[in-house]
């Protein structure tokens, strides 16, 4: 019996303001057959530098979606107390 674990970004969702919702799946297999899948999530907002350190395809999506106009619009919408 061989148990193995792999992680992959199995879903990304781009919101209207350019934010990217990321889902990472940890897939557990037994003798090559998937027996469990666990999800971990996070969100990257336009201009977040951490996105470039995320697994593929998040950096490519961020580069494509986050134009300077998108980043400026997102930052302008942020409010502080």
């Amino acid at each position, binding site marked *: 019996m061989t148990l193995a674990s792999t992680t992959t970004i199995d879903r990304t969702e781009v919101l*209207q*303001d350019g*934010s990217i919702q990321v889902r990472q799946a940890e897939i557990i297999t037994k003798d090559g057959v998937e027996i469990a899948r666990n999800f*971990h*999530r*996070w*969100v990257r*907002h336009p201009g977040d530098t951490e996105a470039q350190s995320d697994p593929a395809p998040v950096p490519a999506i961020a580069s494509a979606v986050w134009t300077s106009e998108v980043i400026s619009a997102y930052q302008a*919408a942020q409010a502080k*107390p």
Partner: protein
Amino acid sequence: MTTVIGGSSPSITFSDSTTQSTAALPLTGGQLSGNLTFSTGTNGIVFNNSSAAINSTLNDYETGTWTPTLITDGTGATITYSSQLGKFTKIGNIVYVECEIGWTARSGGSGNVLVGGFPFGLTDSAVYGMRLGPFSFVAGTGMPTTPVLGYFTTPSSATAFYLYPTTSNTAVGSAAITGGGGLAFKGFYTCNF
């Protein structure tokens, strides 16, 4: 549609000649032994209680984890964590979250403190200034002694909220993160997806 109950290959089969030849729900011992899977993210179970199908469709369910963080809205802080535990259950557009976050030290940082890292962005249509809480546990020498609420100040896709004592309109400053401390809460909010 073909329904075959019993025999050597019991199944319920939906046929659509324009998009697929066969889709089946296999039965084992009188119970479904397969999953009912929708082809796109917008498809789901439509409840027959409204003429507006989009508002009556249950199209998502997911459970998982997230990593809560403490961030500041001024210069960045370095936080030493003792725990960062987050779980979520999403049903439709409702996200139920559980969070436990502990810290032992902070260096640098200015401005107010936020809890970030939420798994889904807050919905665009959420009530401005939506609150989450009060928290079930707040500890730390610099933290408020009154109950604390989470306060989303920006409605569109926000994934972090400020901390507010229930008795004050002043957000908790980053100086409150000093020495050791912790926060724990459960709550829910609405998201975009």
